[in-house]
Every structure is written in structure tokens, then in C-alpha cells.
């Protein structure tokens, strides 16, 4: 190989291949991505975050929250649960059939067979889809995260390291704005041994004027971690936006490419 031009052209093709594959193709496939519908309904998903939550995404970005938190729930697979919906005219026969069957965490074929047997005995049963995996078991989400969950985010903040817990479903898990704000101000007052740094610079500590009412925005602290009497902690706009963003994180509807049966999960 004596020709510089040849090296140039050959590496152009080799390197450019990945550009076509990982830049051009995804832009063509995902660039025109539209809203989808929630499984078995005509509801559109996602609806876009409220304005304040969108502002909060910028606070999330500016403070590098994604350096410690992911927003992607993983799923190792799906299983089926067979749920009895009616005992029919001969409950004893149905009970008999059920006692011989495994009904939880089975695959689709076994679930279909079980439903057939229950139907034959005169009972009624339906199949519930249950996502599996440690993240789901921890309650971080009801299903895995999919591309649609991030449709309106800019910048998308999926994160790559779990120094803190996953936040894809934090709005469902911890829906109390005051809890979120107190946790941002003083993490260890809400979560013992938390490694999260406090974000006190997003709050103002104010003296309550004698005779005046405390600010309506002031944080309500759990017992034992209140600020000194006569003081109150008021969130800045940024803190409120960040809390609004966190509460808007609830990727919890079933979709075509990430199905689950809602009733099955509402069971303890």
C-alpha cells in the first residue's frame, strides 16, 4: 500500500459505514417518530410534559443529575398469569382443575392451555401479561423503558450509571412534591444513608417575620430535621421546576412494544 489516497478512501468507507448505520438510519427511523396509542385504547402516548416540567428537564441537565441516575427500566422478559374471573356453575370442578395447574409466571402456551382447561370446567379466566426483571421487582417501573417515553425530551437524559436509583417511574413511586423538594434540600432527612449531595443552592432559607404567615411554598420537613425555629426553607423557581420534572417521570402505561396488564400489577 503506497497510495495515501487509497488509505483515505478505504477508511472513508469503513468509518462512514458506522455513520450511515448509527446516525443516518436512526435519524430516518426515529426522526419522524409519532405518538403511539396506549395498548387497547385510543389514548395517545406520550402527551408531552407540562411547561414547568420541561423547564425542570433543563435544571436536571444543568446540574448533571444523569451522572448518577438512569431513566431506563430494564426488563428480562415477560410471563403470563392466569387470573380467574368467574367460577361458573360448577365451582368445585373449577377449583379441582386449578389445583392441578400452575397459574403464575408461566409462558403463553401454558397460559392458553390453562385457560382452555378452566373454560372446559365451566369457569372463566383471563391472561395477564407480567413484565419480569429486578428493576420491575424493585418497583422502579411497570414495564421496560421504550423509545416513546423520551419522544418530547430535549436533551434525552437516559443516564448510564446507577449511583442513585432509576428515575423512569419516580413520579409514580414518590408523587409528593413536598417529599421531592425536602429530599433535594436535605436528602438524608428523607432517605437514611443516602449518598446524594444536598442541593441547598436551589433553596432560600428565610427568617419568618414576626406576626407574618409562613410562605405558602415553604417546605414541610419530617420530624427531627426542621430548620431552626423562626426560619423557613423556600424553594427557588428552579427547585420547583426540577420537582415538577421528577413528578412528570411516570412511564407507566402499556404500549404495543412493551405490554403489560394493568390489573395484574395493581395486586400486591
Amino acid at each position: 500500500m503506497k497510495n495515501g489516497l487509497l488509505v483515505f478512501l478505504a477508511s472513508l468507507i469503513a468509518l462512514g459505514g458506522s455513520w450511515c448505520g448509527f446516525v443516518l438510519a436512526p435519524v430516518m427511523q426515529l426522526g419522524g417518530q409519532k405518538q403511539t396509542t396506549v395498548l387497547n385504547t385510543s389514548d395517545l402516548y406520550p402527551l408531552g410534559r407540562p411547561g414547568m416540567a420541561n423547564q425542570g428537564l433543563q435544571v436536571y441537565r444543568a446540574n448533571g443529575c444523569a451522572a448518577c441516575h438512569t431513566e431506563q427500566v430494564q426488563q428480562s422478559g415477560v410471563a403470563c398469569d392466569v387470573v380467574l374471573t368467574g367460577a361458573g356453575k360448577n365451582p368445585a370442578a373449577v377449583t379441582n382443575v386449578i389445583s392441578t395447574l400452575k397459574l403464575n409466571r408461566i409462558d403463553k402456551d401454558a397460559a392458553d392451555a390453562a385457560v382452555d382447561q378452566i373454560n372446559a370446567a365451566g369457569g372463566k379466566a383471563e391472561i395477564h401479561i407480567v413484565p419480569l426483571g429486578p428493576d420491575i421487582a424493585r418497583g422502579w417501573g411497570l414495564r421496560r423503558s421504550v423509545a416513546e417515553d423520551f419522544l418530547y425530551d430535549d436533551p434525552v437524559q437516559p443516564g448510564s450509571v446507577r449511583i442513585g436509583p432509576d428515575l423512569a417511574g419516580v413520579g409514580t413511586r414518590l408523587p409528593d412534591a413536598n417529599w421531592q423538594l425536602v429530599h433535594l434540600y436535605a436528602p438524608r432527612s428523607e432517605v437514611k444513608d443516602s449518598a446524594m449531595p444536598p442541593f441547598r443552592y436551589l433553596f432560600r432559607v428565610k427568617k419568618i417575620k414576626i406576626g407574618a404567615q409562613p410562605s405558602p411554598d415553604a417546605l414541610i420537613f419530617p420530624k427531627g430535621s426542621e430548620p431552626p425555629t423562626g426560619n423557613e426553607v423556600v424553594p427557588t423557581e428552579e427547585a420547583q421546576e426540577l420537582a415538577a420534572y421528577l413528578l412528570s417521570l411516570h412511564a407507566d402505561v402499556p404500549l404495543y412494544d412493551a405490554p403489560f396488564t394493568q390489573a395484574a400489577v395493581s395486586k400486591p
Partner: protein
Amino acid sequence: MSTSETKSLSTSEIDRSCCIPLLALFGGAALWLLAGSVLGLLASIKFHAPDFLADCPWLTYGRLQPAADDALLYGFCLPAGLGVVLWVLARLSQKPLSGAIVPIFAANLWHLGVLVGLVGIFIGDSTGFPWLEFPRGGSVPIFFAYLLIALWAMMIFAGRRERALYPSHWFLVAALFWFPWIYSTANLFLVAWPVRGVGQTVIGWWFANNLTLVWMGLTGLGVVFYFLPKLSGRPLQSHYLALFVFWTFILFGTWCGIPAGAPVPAWLPTISTVAAAWLIVPLIILVVMTWRTVGFITSECLAGGSYSFIRLGLGFFRLSLLLLIIMACPHFGRVTNFTWFGTADMQLRLYGFFAMTMFGAIYYLLPRVVGIEFPFPKLVRVHFWLSLAGIVLLVLPLLVGGVVQGLKLQNPDIAFAESTRSMLPFLRISTTGLLLIVLGNLLFFANIMVLTVLWKFALAKKLIAFVKSPLDETGSAYASLPRDKEVGA
């Protein structure tokens, strides 16, 4: 005058022609290296004391850590790499660098861009994409500074005396032109006109992988293939194997980086996993090449000079590739995903491979380029041992801890807080490792800075001598102006 003298004279001329651009690139790089490792140390302390520096918004962990990473990558790795590439290409082409003012200007523009970018991260202007955090004020100057330096490097390459290409040429030229491509793509599609949804994430991962694996791999290997034969006195075994490494590395390496289980269309992570597995091919060839060229590890590898730095850098690169392949295995990858394991691999590639290789190259070439020996040659050895110990202490605990953390994350019966708590002893050791790295970087910085000061003194002396010298009979003061050649000899 014999031919060998002519040759050595012209080699020294080539070296001296790179002097000011290289001092400009390396001086700033040494400063950013030190700054980056200090920032990384501060960020690391926060794990042991979350309240440390918590009231200063500039120094919150989420800004400190990206700033530390970018100071290391954009502040040190890229300019140091570019400087070494300029010199290697000039040497290979047997051509001095002309028009040095342009790379000098570009080097200063580069370091200005890094400064603006870092301040941008600190004030909360980060773009939010890993390894691409610099806002426009930083990324635009960096991009154009790179273009200028790459253009000058390509001019040296085009004007080479020997038409036949050496393996380093392929690696370095491909790297030179790959960075502007990926950096402009990422900045245009993510920052200027952001694409929709997770398309951003895919492009972000593609960029980060192509910068930290492919660009650094190509540049580092190109430099290693130049220095390994030169320092060991044995020819590279062989050029064909090097070519094979080159093609397989860019063919598979460019497609890595999309983690399994990512919320993107499934074909993307699948391709990445397969590509990462195929990296075993360049890895094996690289092992064979090193073994055939320089044999097994000898005492020479630990002597602490340029050769040791480069041998160790190459060793760490192979280890880092191996870790990358292991992480791509589905069963193991599920455990290490989202843990410190990936961070450890990245640190191994940045500090262990790239920075070590550049240290070796700079320690070899800078005294020749400037014409002055390093003021503290003994510190080079100390730097070597501090770096080696620091990297092992930084990376090994994070690797082991990452597996421990991952196993705990995979078991939903173990509380999440427990997985974080179990990392603390490992993080404590890695903080110690970072401290050693900071000390080592301080020595590197001291050597480069004092060398620059000595060079400036020598320059000033020359200038004073020139001004003071009386006009000779011919009426020309230039006769007494000392030439670079004489000083350098």
C-alpha cells in the same frame, strides 16, 4: 561531512521546527491534565462526604465529574495526541514543519475553547450529552482549532519524502480525519438542530464510542507502532499484521457503544454487541504483534523511561479492549450494566492507555524538540511509578466493586441503598489511586513548565546577546545571531 551527519542534522532541524507549536499544545495539556485530575479527586471525595462543597452550585457532583472527564479528554488527550501526531508525521515524512504560526494559533484557540467549555459546564450550560458537554462557546473553537492542526498535519503527510506508507500513517491519518466528522455530526444533530427523542441518545453513544475507543485507539496505536520499534531497536512484526489490526479495528470498533437493553430499536444494541465481540480479532493480533516485536515483559518495561510508559500503555489498551468484549457478553453485561465497571474501563482507556502512551512519547520527543533536557529527569521515573500504582488502585477496585454492585442490583431482595453502600470501600481505594495520579500529573506538569521557562530564558539570552553584539565589519548584526542548529547540537 558524512551522510550520517547530514541526516542527524536534518532530523534535529525537523525536531526544532515543531518546537513552539508543541510547547503550546503540551503546556496547556499538562495544565488541563492536572486540573482534570484534581477535579476528579474532588468529585470522588463527595462519595465519602456528600456535604463536601455542596453549597457551591459550580462544584456539585453532576458538574464536577463531567468537567473532570472533559478536562482530561479535551484538555489533555486530544491536544497531546495532536502534538505527538504532528511530530511523528514530520519525522516519518522527513520534512520540517513550516508555517508554524498556524498550529501555534490553533493550539491557543484550542485551550481557550477548553476553558470556555469547562466554565460552561460549571455555570450549568452543559449540553447534557456524555463526552460532548461543552456548549457552543467551547465546541466551535475546538472544532476549528482541530481542523487547522489536522490540515497542517496532512500537509506534512502529503509532502513526505518516502512515498511508501508506514503502519503509523494509516492509524494517524484515519484518526485525524475521523474526529472532525464525528464531532461535527454530534454537535449538529444534538446541539444545533437536535433530532427527536432517542435518536439523540443513539448519536450520543455513537459519538462517545468513536471518540474514546476509535479515535483514541487509532491515535494511540499509531504512536505505539512508531515508538515500539524505535525504542526497542527491533522492527515492527509485521506491517501486514498492523494493517490487519487497522482494518478490523475500524470495521468493528466504530459500531460499538450502544448498550444492551437500551430503550432504542433492538437492532441497534444487537449490532453493537456483535461488533464488540468481533473486537477479539484485533485484540489477538495485537497480542501476537507485541510478542513477535518485543517479546514478553522484561525488566526494561519497568525501568520508568519512555519505553516503559509505552509498553504499559499498550498493555492497558489490550486489557481495556478485553473488558469491553466481556461487557458485551449478554450474561456478564447484564450484571455490569449501570455499574462502576464501565466507568473503570473508561478510566483505564483514558489514563492507563492513552495518557500513558502520550507521556512516553512526550518524555522522548520534547527534549529533542526544544533542545534542552528535562530539568528533573529523575521525576520521570517517579511519575511512572505513581501513574502505574494510581491506575491500578483507581481501576481495579472499581472493576471488582462494579461486579459486586451489579450482583446486588440484580437481586431485588437487596435494597438499592445496600448496593451503593457496598461500593464505599472500593471507592475509598480508588480515591487513593486518584490522589497518586494527581501527584504524578503534578510532576509531569512541573517538568514541562520548568522546561518551557528554561527555553524562554535561553531565548531571552539569545535575544539580549543579539541586541548587545556590536555591528561587525560587514555592518551586519545577523552574523552573531546564534542559529538554532548550534544551540541544539
